[in-house]
């Protein structure tokens, strides 16, 4: 990542720019590289194609919804590996309650043509429960978040497969399908991002999250109920993963047990690229949003350059590691200073 090239000042520290500006510069840089390569190799503009850009945003916004939850978990000093599986489980449950009556092999023949609120609430409940279980395990049994959510990742995926014995579920009502139609996922993402941007910045919920991520012991001594807040954050992360699951299944008009595989890693990658520190205590929703767009630009840029999909994955891996290296480097500088 590019770091500011200003001279190191030994006197009063200069007014520092927010970290988001750095990440934004990375985004601009990457976009320009694709723009130039586009003119050279394809003879056309990368950025000057509104349709391509809107597809790009659409592609990443579903995982973006998950990333909003994951961002908070990481700021708290944790990690959530279960989001992708929660997407799968939620998709199955909500779709099975959203089927049309004209389809004669519905999962619940007596429960067809239900108002959209039913599959929506049922799906969200799946995520809320899974997230709460994660949170309770982590906060009260003190097992590492990595292990607790790894367990949930395997279990929730198993649940999704068991639910219909591996059969896909299809034929949703129009009102349910509308949740994934057109640019709706993008609007849902923006709404979620706005809510949690405000929550992290202006509410006690946010202050507690940063405090616990920065120093859980100090947070506890300051009168914060650390355990309860941990449960809250993981529950929110589960809820948002479920929301993403509903959107993705509504958009695809079908639910399959394998939906959402690896989404958790993409969501973590977005957050990390967006400057959220894996050590906890630092990061913003805005940063993650930029990280998400960087992610999208890279994928759509490679497609635009007609690069093989296999290269895309390899390069994605490199970028994720590079983002973490940048984060660790920032930490080291901090340690040296103090």
């Amino acid at each position, binding site marked *: 990542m590019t770091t500011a090239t200003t001279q190191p000042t030994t006197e*009063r*520290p200069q007014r520092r720019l927010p970290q988001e500006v750095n990440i934004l510069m990375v985004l601009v840089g990457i976009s320009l590289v694709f723009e130039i390569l586009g003119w050279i190799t394809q003879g056309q503009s990368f950025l000057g194609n509104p349709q391509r850009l809107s597809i790009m945003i659409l592609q990443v916004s579903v995982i973006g919804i998950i990333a909003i939850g994951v961002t908070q978990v990481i700021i708290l000093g944790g990690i959530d590996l279960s989001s992708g599986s929660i997407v799968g489980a939620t998709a199955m449950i909500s779709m099975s309650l959203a089927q049309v009556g004209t389809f004669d092999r519905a999962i619940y023949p007596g429960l067809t043509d239900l108002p959209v609120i039913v599959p929506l609430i049922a799906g969200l409940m799946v995520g809320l429960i899974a997230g709460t279980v994660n949170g309770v395990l982590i906060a009260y049994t003190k097992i590492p978040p990595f292990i607790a959510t790894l367990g949930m990742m395997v279990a929730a995926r198993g649940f999704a497969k068991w639910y219909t014995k591996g059969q896909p579920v299809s034929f949703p009502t129009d009102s349910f399908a509308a949740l994934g139609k057109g640019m709706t996922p993008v609007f849902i993402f923006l709404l979620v991002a706005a809510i949690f941007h405000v*929550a992290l910045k*202006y*509410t*006690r*919920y946010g*202050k507690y999250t*940063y*405090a616990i991520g*920065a*120093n859980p*012991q*100090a*947070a*506890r*001594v*300051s*009168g*914060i*109920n650390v355990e309860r807040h941990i449960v809250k954050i993981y529950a929110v992360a589960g809820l948002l993963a479920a929301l993403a699951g509903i959107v993705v299944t509504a958009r695809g008009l079908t639910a399959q047990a394998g939906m959402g595989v690896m989404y958790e890693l993409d969501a973590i990658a977005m957050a990390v690229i967006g400057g959220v520190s894996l050590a906890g*205590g*630092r990061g913003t929703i805005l940063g993650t949003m930029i990280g998400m767009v960087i992610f999208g630009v890279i994928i759509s840029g490679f497609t635009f350059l007609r690069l093989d999909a296999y290269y895309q994955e390899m390069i994605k891996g490199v970028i994720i590691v590079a983002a973490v290296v940048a984060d660790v480097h920032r930490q080291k500088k*901090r340690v040296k*200073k*103090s």
Partner: protein
Amino acid sequence: MVSASTAAAVDRVKQRIDAEGILAIRGIRKEFPGVLALDDVQLKVRPGTVHALMGENGAGKSTLMKIIAGIYQPDAGEITLRGKPVTLKSPLDALEQGISMIHQELALMNWMTVAENIWIRREPKNVFGLIDHGKMARQTQELFDRLNIRLDPLAMVSELTVAQKQMVEIAKAVSHNSDVLIMDEPTSAITENEVAHLFTIIRDLRARGVGIVYITHKMSELFEIADEFTVFRDGKYVGTHSALDVTRDDIIRMMVGRDITDMFPKIDCPIGEVVLEARNLTIPGVFHDVSFQLRKGEILGLAGLVGSKRSNVAEALFGVHPASSGEVLIDGTPVQITSPKVAMEHGMAFLTEDRKETGCFLILDCLENIQTALITRDHVRFGFIDQKAVTKLAEDMAAKLRVKTPNLAEKVENLSGGNQQKLLIARWLLTKPRILILDEPTRGIDVGAKSEIHRLITGLASEGVAVLMISSELPEVLGMSDRIMVMHEGHVAGFLNRDEADQVKIMDLAAR
């Protein structure tokens, strides 16, 4: 056949060792950010002697030992080993040059066997270059036989008691056949029988010519095992004497002997009714039957040596680790303080001992650090913080406490220790506490900030706040307190009134 010149050289070295000791240290200086831990100290350990190193908490004993063991690098000074100047670049380097150390904190690998722990990095190999476990077990057994330790070399370290682990540590240190052996409070975790056993081992090593540096707080041990002793005070060398021609009082005087300056601006103020009372607070194995009363406007000093469990009592009062039995009364009413949040609801505040570990949010800014406790209770509507009001309060408090920072958006990690401490005090004062528990309020901060904090504490007491102040600095305890409670190994050793207390009396209770 040894040539004459070699023999002469050996002789010269021998003479020099006799004159300078096997280990000689001169002019060592070590500074940590904000604290001068060691200032021009010296120490000379002669072969075949036990040299006790004495001093109060924070006198610099452990820092010097860490320098000798290669853990810290001195900023200035000279270390001579067997008559030759050396630099000790790392613990491994020190070990290879013949210095072993038994650490105060046990440093064994729990999931390996006793033998593996002792011979790590020096495992006996078989002809294929693989580890010869049989030989390793035999070597361990021989070592244990020599030291008269009854332990299975193949036992897992995790299954040993603390005392057994301590014996393994000792055996490990001895197995290096070092010329210098450092023991940092080796008896803090073992029983009397084991102490006797340890002393047998020490006498045996002494007879073999090993120079032993023995750090301890306990007078009785000094007289039993030490040949010579050196006293440090506030990071400075006070003196070295033979253990034969001093009395216990002489040593205490050497350890504490400094004048109380008018650094402590104690304001006499009326002391009111009992606000906080503890009755028989106990956590089995930690502290027992701790009872005391704290009154409005009173500063109750809490003194004691490392291991007296003063901080544990404070943590129990504030609900961080609640006591398992006993009663806490606030204004005469019994209360159950199960968490810090509950303690705060009763008007308590707690400045913890370690501001980096349990106090500051180092990576967050000053404002976030100051407002943390306040916003758990006030200035929040529907979850939203009334940031304008809170910022104003925080700014006023930071100004009142004279926190030096360009602005409250500065990250706390960029502040000095004294300013970090003031910031934490500001955090608590915003909650308007009636009972203030301070654990080492001035540890590791410079003199100027220290006296500002002292003035602040007395000011609060005169406004009617009840203060419980834990401090390892006797002058601070004596200068600030209306009454002093002294703890010794988890028990209340006694109370002293302001007019009767002096350093010798406190040390007498604290170091029985």
